[in-house]
Every structure is written in C-alpha cells, then in structure tokens.
C-alpha cells in the first residue's frame, strides 16, 4: 500500500505541485478496495449500456417448456441458458443484464434528484440562516426520525406502486443527508476569508452561493452521493421485494428476488443470482465511496 503511494506521490519532488486530478488518482489508487469497486462498477455500467448486444434473450421472453432450468454447470442445465431460467422460463442471465440498467438508473436518478434538491435546500438554510433554516432543518429532522424504509413505503402507498414512484420515494428518504451536509459545509465556508473577499468585492447572493461556496462543498457531496447510490439501489430493491417498486415484467433485481422466494429450497439459482448482483453492486459502490472519501476529504489527507 505504502509502496504504490510513494510511487504516485513521486512527482511532488520535482517542484511544481501535481495536477489536482493526478493527486486525487494517487490517493485513490492506493486504496485497492476502491479500485476493485470502480472496476466492478465499470463492468456493471458496460453491462447496462451493452445489454442489447450482450443479453442472449429478451428479458421478458417466456418459454414455459424450459422453466426452472438450472445453470449450465449443474446437472440438467444447458448452455443455451447459461445461468438457468426462472419459473416461467425467462433467461436469468438476460434478466440480470437488463436489470443492471434499471438498478443503475435507479441509483443515478435517485441520487440526482436528492442531490439537486438537497443542495438547494442546504444552501438556502446555510446561507440565509434564521427562520428559514430552522424550518428546513426541523422538517429534515422529522424525516430522519422515521425509519427510512417505512417512510418509503408510506410514500409509495400514497403515490401508488411503480418504478418512478419508488424512485421518488427513495429520493425523498435520503434527502435529509444531503441537506444537512450542504448546510454544515456552507456554514463553515461562509466564515472563510475568500467568501468575505467576495462579499466585499460586491458579489451577488446567487454568485456567492453557487460559484464561491458550492464548489468547496463538492468533495463531501461526491462522497455522500457515491455512498448514496448504493443505498438507493438497496432501498429500491427492498421496495421491489415488497411488491411496491418496479412492476412485472421489468427485470428489477429486488422484484426478481421476491418472485422467486418460494424456490429457495428447490431452485437456488432463481433466488441467489439476483441477490448476488445486488450484493456486488452495492458493495462496489460502498467501496468506491470509501475510496473517494479517503482521497477527497481534506481532513483525512496525509
């Protein structure tokens, strides 16, 4: 670990400071777990993009004559269905590949929704303070007191089940984290000299908020967002498992898991494989998030 660190930090010896990206990569690549996470994410991402090319079958093509075929290495399996088929004869490999599209989309959409609204609310609270801050933060505190999945279920119950509604619900549930992080950083940044300088030189409120303060909050937000993707995927899968998320026939991993519960003793592959996909993807995002935090958080920098 320290060896690689030294290798990459070497350029500093030659006078000029390294490019920020280069410095970041130096820290980041020192963390093997994070690199592994990144590799897995790139793999899942490619799977999602190339689903049409990679998947041997359409994800919702049923063929009941081959229902519950085991994976190819097991007795009775066939190479035409590499990872076997589910109860109504859909190819599991194809469904998993297409499912990666959904799961990544869920992660990204949820995080985008919550980051954008969270940052705006956090900035407002941190910049203006006063009654506005109290109002926003107390609402967020209330949201934090309710268990996240329960809150998501309540929201879906109101909006009606479906993938889009599930995403909105999850986005709302994770919103308070972004608001709190943004507000805290904004408050601490506001007291810094560069902000005072900007105020003195007559910069407008919006300029200070968005072009002076916000860029300095980004490292923390990036870390939180990368960890947030995994939480979003997990929550959406949980909603899907409860029948409140993606609706059939969409090959969402959580929904696939729920549909095949009854086969847990008889056809392990129908249950295990989507579960493994959720596990690896979520783990990869968590590792990536940890790596990013180590690399970006000024407090943790050596």
């Amino acid at each position: 670990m320290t060896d690689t660190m030294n290798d990459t930090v070497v350029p500093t010896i030659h006078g000029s400071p390294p490019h920020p990206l280069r410095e970041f990569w130096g820290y980041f690549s020192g963390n093997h777990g994070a690199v592994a996470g990144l590799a897995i994410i790139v793999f899942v991402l490619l799977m999602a993009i190339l689903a049409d090319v990679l998947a041997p079958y359409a994800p919702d093509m049923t063929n009941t004559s081959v229902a519950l075929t085991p994976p190819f290495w097991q007795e009775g399996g066939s190479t035409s269905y590499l990872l076997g088929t589910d109860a109504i004869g859909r190819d599991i490999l194809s469904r998993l590949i297409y499912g990666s599209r959904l799961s990544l989309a869920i992660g990204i959409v949820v995080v985008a929704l919550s980051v954008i609204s969270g940052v705006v609310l956090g900035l407002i609270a941190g910049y203006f303070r006063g009654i506005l801050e109290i109002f926003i933060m107390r609402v967020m505190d209330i949201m934090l007191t309710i268990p996240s999945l329960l809150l998501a279920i309540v929201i879906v119950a109101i909006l009606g089940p479906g993938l889009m509604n599930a995403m909105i619900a999850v986005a709302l549930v994770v919103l308070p984290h972004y608001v709190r992080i943004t507000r805290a950083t904004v408050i601490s940044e506001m007291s810094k000299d560069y902000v005072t300088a900007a105020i003195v030189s007559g910069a407008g409120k919006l300029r200070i908020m968005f072009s002076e303060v916000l860029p300095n909050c980004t490292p923390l937000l990036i870390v939180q967002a990368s960890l947030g993707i995994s939480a979003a995927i997990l929550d959406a899968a949980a909603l899907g498992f409860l029948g409140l998320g993606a609706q059939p026939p969409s090959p969402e991993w959580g929904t696939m898991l729920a549909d095949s519960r009854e086969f847990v003793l008889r056809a392990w592959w129908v249950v295990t494989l989507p579960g493994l996909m959720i596990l690896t993807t979520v783990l990869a995002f968590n590792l990536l998030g940890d790596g990013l935090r180590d690399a970006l958080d000024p407090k943790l920098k050596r």
Partner: protein
Amino acid sequence: MTAITSKTKIALLCTLAIPAAFSVSNAAAKTLVFCSEGSPENFYPGINTTGTSFDVNSQIYSRIVEFERGGTKVGPGLAERWTISKDGKEYTFFLRKGVKWHSNKNFKPTRDFNADDIMFAFDRQWKESNPYFKVTSPNHSYFNDMGMPDLLKSVEKVDDYTVKITLKSQAAPFLANLAMEYAGVQSKEYADAMLKAGTPEKLDQEPVGTGAFMLVQYQKDAIIRFKAFPEYYAGKAKIDDLIFAITPDASVRWAKLQKGECHVMPYPTPADLDTMRKTPGIKVMEQPGLNIGFLAYNVTKKPFDDVRVRRAVSMAINKKSIIDAVYLSTGIAAKNPIPPTQWSYNNATKDDVYDPEGAKKLLAAAGFANGFKTDMWAMPVQRPYNPNARRIAELMQADLAKVGVTVEIKSFEWGEYRKRMQNGEHQTGMMGWTGDNGDPDNFLTTQLGCDAAKPGGGNVTKWCYKPFEDLIKKAVAITDQAERTKLYEKAQTIFKDQAPWFSIAHAVQLTPMRTEVIDFKQSPFGRHTFYGVDIKE
C-alpha cells in the same frame, strides 16, 4: 438433585410448574396443529366469502343440515329430520333437542339451542329491521348472491323445536344451500345479551356456537386456539385441542410440516409436491377439486364491453403454458365455468384455441388494430384454484404483448382486492371459485348471475345476460336432474360464446399432512374440518 438447596428447589419448581403442567396435559390431551394460510375476516360466516374464514367458522358453528364428512350428501344437523311438501315449496324442520351452546367469559348460556336461534340466523341476513343486520357488515354476500331474499317467502316458528320455511318458488338446491357455511347458526340469547350490553360486534368477535370446537384464543396473523366442545351434540371430537398456526407463506408452511410443528397444511406450492411425496412421515392427499380459476373481463368497462375483444384476448392467451408452468401437475385446463366433477358439465364445449394471429384479426375487426392498454388484477395470495396469480398474470402479459395489448399488473391486499373487484373497479382480474354445495347453481348463479352482478356482488365480470340468466333461473326451479342438466349445458354454451371469462384451470385439491393424522377427509368444497380426525400417539 440432592445438592441443590431447598430455596433453589422451590425456584426451580416454580419455573418448571408451567411447562410441566403443559406437558402433563399434553400427554393426555391430543393436540392437532393446522398451519392455516391466513387470518379470518371475523367469526360470523354470514358475511364471509373466503375459504380462510370458513375453515375457522366451520369448527365453531353448526348448521340446520350438514354435508356428510368428505362428501356432498346433505344429512341431518341441528335439524334431526325434515319434510318437504309435494309442491317443493314448504320445508318443515324438526330440530334436535338438548343441543348445548359454547360459553365464554361474556356469556353463559341459560338455555339449549331452539327455534329462536334458527329464526335469528335467517332474520339477521334477511331483514334490514333486525338490529344485527348491519353489525360488522351489512353485506351478506352469500345470502344475497344466491337470491335468498327473493326466494324466501316466510320462515315461521311452529313451536320451540319446529321451523317451517316457505319458498316463493321451487328451488332444487335449497337444502344444500342451508348446509353451507354462511348459514351457521348463532345464539339468539348471546346476541340479545350483547345488544343489551351495547357491544353487538362481540357476537362476531368472540363467537359462541354449537359446533365441535370452541374458540379459546385468537391473535390476528398468529394463532387461533380451539378446544374440543365436550357437549357437542354428535359426541366430543377425538382430538382435544385444535390450533391454527397462521402461516401465510407456503414454503414456511411446508418447512413447519416437515419439522413436525404442524400436522396438516393447506395449499402447498406445486413445486414442492415431488419432495413432499418422497419425504418420510408425510402423506399427500389429493382429489379433483370442485373449483375453477379464471380471468374475468369487466364487461361494463371498455373495451371489454365488446364480445370480440373478449374472445380475442381469450384466443391470445396460451392456456397450456400457464398450466404447465404454474399449476404443474396439479391442474387441468378449464373450458366450462364448472369443473368436470360437477354434474351437468358440458363435455361438448370447445375450448378457446390458442391463436395469436386470429386474435390480432379479431382485435382489428373490433377496431383495435394497434392493440390497447388494460390493467390486469392478480391476487396477492395463493388460492385453492390458483397457486400463483401474479405468475399467471406475467405469462398472460407476455402473451398479450404479442398481439399488441399492453397489460399493467395490479395487486391489492386480499380483502381490499375482493372488495374492489366486486365493486367492478378492474378491467380484467383474476378470481376463482370453489363450489360449496355440490350444485351447478352454486357456480353459475353466484359467479355469473344477474343478482350477483350488482356492485358489491360476487359476479366480478358484472355480466348480466338475459338468455343465460333465464336458463339458470329456469333450471333452479325444477328438481329433475336430467332436465336441469340440459338447461345447464345450454347455459354453458352461451357462456362460452359470450366469453365473460377466460377460464384457466381446475386445480387438484392437495392436502399434505403428517402420517400421525388419522381419518382426515378432504372436503370436496375445499374446507378443512377437524371433527372426526384423530392423532396417533
């Protein structure tokens, strides 16, 4: 033991006392555990419609007449014998004397069962003026769907042990109708006492019946505990305690049965059957089920008001693949609205052919060349006639996508699901029926008749078709079975032609149980009753 001080001995004794007492009584008492699939709606069968509730209420209440155990023959129950007048309109029931009521903490009966209780059983469901008519729910589904309010002319108490029922017209299945669960007799004395106490709903929550088992404890979604009623008129049950361990998940039920945590379970997953048959200590009873699972088209909603659309959708669905994938070896394709074990089954009916091309043409003719969008409701629970509605819905969704019909699958909590479907909120939805008196009328009138097509009625297609209705009305009024068969066969032809349902399958009724269970009889109506069942020590 001698090393322990007397103090710890006492403490030890105290902690042992309860389990010891338990095990001692266990040695003497025979306990049967039934892993039931859900909680009952309440303890008043008159407003229930699900097998889940009937399984519970069946143990508690008795009826005027009863089906023989494991059969469809009607025999004496609370009435020892009866006479029917020549014109078939007057039934005189001579009631059994000395039938005792259960008691509970609210109520100690002061009198035996008599004609007043029978009067109450009818009045509560029939007469809006009865103070109990609206208690718990005013929707007496069975009573109404079978056309009882129109059929009954009068119910009279001749003396304390004689009741005379007069009908407006002759009705062949009337006696069998009285043996059905909804006609369970409650105590008039208990009802009056609860009304006086201002808690009429207790009558349906803490039930008092004359049946073989009395309710001891009920915890929603967990457990129902019964005790054999020692003074049951036909003699005490062979088992002493009956426990319903509520276990909604079929694979958990199977795991419990395997480990000996329960003795009998309903509704196994077809996928587990092979393993069950091979497992030592387990036997699987099976018999052709008197049931049907179907997809109902709501004919009051577009585009299913057009018979061509209904036929086209029926043609586009591959029934065989549904039966192969979901029912496995436990279902046979359904072409009629009644099962083949039901007399008057029309063998000549031609089933819908699977023909996506033909379906497309028919849709185009109906003005839907580009298909349309529809919802499809699938129940969230396993039913005797449908092992996995959501999976079937997914298969249908894939089939219908091929002819351009986009299907959105919807599901609600089971109670809500039934209520909304009976109100006709769906476009298409899955439903099913298990016959409960062995008469074809019980399928056709309750599921396809006009009385049941009103909002809230059990006819979920809301299909009210005059020629069909006339035939089944006519058939009910005659007693000659050959004559009735002819009419019912004609009715089935009309049904097939008008296609209000896509009939899916008749499920084989399967009851896995441990080999210790002796003399369990499968009810043709899908009930699970435990009077007469014994357990090997």
